[in-house]
């Protein structure tokens, strides 16, 4: 399953993110929101249309069928809110839309979203009004009832998805105001709830949309509507004639084809049988870059592949052992060895695009063997009583198993025998049997780029991989307090405290940020090469900006 058996769940509803207002007041921002939306639209249009050699915009060619390849299998599913793997995310994006979207620094924006205005006075009551004349694939006009239904479905406590939305919203808090407006009353203040609206799984569905689990229908507001779907084989999506964003989409049809592995995927791309390959393996990058018919786009927004050390299990119970592991590694060497430098260094932190990134300004951790050995010796470890653990990794992503092996090799060698770690690649069923399983104290995971707060929420609430925070910690309380806090300075102070605790006591080792790469034919136009949470800038914003020359 290639680099691909992605935990779509991990991406789902890590909702409670943050907007850093800097010194601008929230009121100013809201007033400027309409203008921002228009500007965003203009900027994204320009960004999406490369100038030709004469310095003129090439004329957009309408029509044609875009063939998109992605690694998938019979577990491929269609649902507006509950998705699992990368092909599911691609299909979600072609048919469904969210109320807001993220800009390049992961700030919520109205551009390409369904909402016209989102307001709050207290962080608890949120009023959302959608644009006029938005039509679903079945011809029905989007109204207040659809918004109520969508948010009730999203916040359904019985649903398997969107768990991290639960502390903030339940179906009783959703009510209709008028035909274009819905009111969400949160269970606790969250001044950054717009981030939830911009999360790509917060999509809008029509009243009655009910196809949890395995299903074959898709009724959204997106630029293409579903024509056919066979799990593990393909789906075909045709142009939505009454799409609200006039003049778009440009293509007649988008076909999403499932591939059994990345080899078949890249072969098909090089052989010209598909136009776009989503998530190409790093090993193939040099070959693809050399191909004169192809373009490669690397998204450096901050995908991470953390090594998870479980902090309430031996040998990592003592914080000094965790610190020593972080000091023993040579990050630059790992980046070169595993990623061939297709990424940049991380200090075991995350969300580099977020304005709150490294709020305390910690310097990059260099390899410090002497310091590490001193800590380990203080804990009581020695060559005769070494730190022993087995780091587990899945077989479906070479970037994960490769890092596990390289990490183990480095800590063993650097410690001169005080650490005796092994790396095991689990052949089948890693994500069901090994990942976060009881008794497993060291394992690999990965996350697509997202803002600081959703990432924190993902790691602490949805997927408590390292069992952080420790008992008695204020980390969770700090998180809720920061979300509720509207004063930028007070909020920044809380964030610094949160990051300090993670830095000093956390169980994640994140040596670098990974550049996620996609490749496509040079005939494909309209690709906005900016950093984004999803490949190709949200797949060309639901494929509506893309066209074939």
């Amino acid at each position, binding site marked *: 399953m290639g680099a691909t058996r992605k935990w779509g769940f991990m991406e789902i509803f890590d909702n409670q993110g943050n907007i850093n207002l800097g010194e601008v007041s929230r009121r100013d921002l809201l007033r400027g929101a309409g203008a921002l939306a228009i500007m965003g639209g203009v900027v994204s249009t320009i960004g999406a249309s490369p100038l030709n050699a004469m310095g003129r915009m090439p004329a957009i060619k309408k029509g044609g069928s875009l063939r998109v390849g992605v690694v998938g299998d019979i577990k491929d599913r269609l649902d507006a809110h509950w998705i699992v793997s990368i092909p599911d995310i691609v299909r979600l994006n072609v048919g469904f839309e969210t109320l807001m979207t993220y800009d390049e620094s992961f700030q919520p924006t109205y551009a390409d979203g369904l909402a016209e205005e989102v307001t709050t006075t207290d962080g608890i009551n949120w009023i959302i009004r959608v644009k006029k004349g938005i039509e679903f694939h079945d011809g029905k006009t989007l109204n207040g009832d659809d918004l109520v239904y969508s948010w009730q479905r999203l916040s359904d406590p019985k649903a398997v998805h969107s768990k991290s939305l639960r502390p903030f919203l339940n179906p009783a808090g959703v009510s209709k105001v008028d035909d274009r407006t819905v009111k969400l009353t949160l269970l606790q203040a969250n001044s950054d709830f717009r981030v939830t609206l911009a999360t790509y799984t917060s999509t809008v569905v029509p009243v009655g949309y009910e196809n949890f689990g395995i299903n074959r229908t898709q009724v959204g507001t997106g630029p293409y509507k579903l024509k056919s779907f066979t799990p593990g084989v393909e789906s075909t999506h045709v142009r939505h004639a009454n799409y609200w964003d006039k003049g778009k989409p440009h293509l007649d049809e988008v076909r999403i084809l499932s591939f*059994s592995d990345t080899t078949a995927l890249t072969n098909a791309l090089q052989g*010209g049988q598909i136009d776009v390959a989503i998530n190409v393996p790093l090993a193939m990058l040099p070959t693809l870059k050399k191909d004169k018919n192809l373009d490669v786009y690397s998204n450096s927004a901050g995908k991470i592949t953390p090594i998870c050390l479980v902090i309430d299990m031996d040998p990592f119970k003592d914080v000094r052992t965790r610190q020593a592991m972080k000091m023993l590694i040579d990050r630059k060497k790992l980046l070169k060895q595993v990623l061939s430098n297709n990424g940049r260094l991380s200090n075991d932190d995350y969300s580099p695009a977020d304005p709150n990134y490294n709020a305390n300004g910690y310097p990059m951790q260099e390899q410090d063997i002497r310091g590490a050995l001193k800590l380990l010796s203080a804990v009581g470890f020695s060559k005769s009583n070494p730190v022993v653990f087995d780091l587990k990794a899945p077989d479906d992503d070479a970037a994960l198993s490769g890092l596990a092996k390289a990490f183990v090799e480095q800590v063993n060698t650097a410690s001169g025998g005080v650490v005796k770690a092994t790396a095991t690649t689990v052949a089948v069923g890693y994500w069901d049997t090994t990942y976060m399983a009881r008794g497993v104290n060291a394992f690999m995971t990965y996350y697509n780029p997202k803002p600081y707060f959703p990432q924190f929420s993902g790691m602490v609430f949805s997927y408590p991989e390292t069992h952080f925070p420790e008992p008695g910690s204020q980390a969770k309380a700090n998180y809720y307090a920061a979300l509720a806090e509207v004063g930028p300075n007070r909020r920044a102070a809380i964030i610094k405290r949160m990051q300090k605790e993670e830095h000093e006591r956390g169980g994640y080792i994140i040596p670098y940020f990974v550049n996620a790469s996609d490749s496509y034919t040079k005939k494909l136009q309209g690709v906005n090469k900016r950093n984004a949470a999803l490949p190709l800038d949200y797949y060309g914003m639901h494929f509506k900006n893309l066209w074939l020359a």
Partner: protein
Amino acid sequence: MPIIKFITRRLGLGVVTLFAVSLLIFLVTQAFPSDPAQAILGRETTPESLDALRQELGLYRPAVTQFSDWLIGILHGDFGKSFVTQMQISEYIAPRVGNSLFLMVVGALLSVPLSVAIGAFSALRRDRRFDTISSTTSLILAAIPEFVMGTALILFFSTSIFHVLPAITLIDAGAAPWSDPSGVVLPIFTLVLAVTPYVSRTMRASMVEILESDYVEMARLKGMSERVVLIRHALPNALGPVFQVIALNLAYLAGGTVIVERLFNYPGIGSALADSVRARDLPVIQFLALMIAGVYVLMNLVADVATVLATPRLRTSLK
């Protein structure tokens, strides 16, 4: 009719073999790590929904009941439902069986006559240029695994040197495999290259032995034309052992195309098997494993009968 008795006996044995195989498949799939409900729902699920799904899938029934229910279902032509797609297995697998069958049949139609011809001709031209070249080539080809062969073909014809043939097969859902004629060239070519060396080498060895036999020499001494000697006397006797190899290779084509199908992204039973193992889709795994075993049993039976019918001394020894 002794031959009918022979076939009946072999069919009976085949059924016993299949029962043993089905038991083995069932036991093996039960021993899989993690349960299907967990694999289907993923990790973000509640104990209640896991419990409900296990109930729905009938995973709480005793193993013996699960096995007997499954077996009785099969005997009634009900192969069950795929855990993952919730489709009837017959409905889900049928197009894929058709696709794989197409690869297998075309592969066999090309490789069998080709290999018999190459083998026979090599034997006739023993130790001369054609024989040396074909023997060396087939030895090399036999030593190369299919995925290496397939990858080399892709590099040569699709991605690196020439761009004349598609690197993968794109068959639309519900469409026939020949709807993408250029897309099936390389998978079929790979299969032909995988099967031909074995069969042609066996054919050559068998033919060489026959050509040196007393009765062929006798036939020649009687003044029969070389053509009659070859077609009437040598070929039928030489084919006997070759049938066995052909049958094994055809059976291999049925199950062993997993790698070729995966390489070319071909939507057949091989890729369905790989998919269902990953997804812990037990009913599909059980069905496909049983079907492939069935093909093996059937192919061996056909080969045995063909061998008996083609070989005069075996034919007459049946009582």
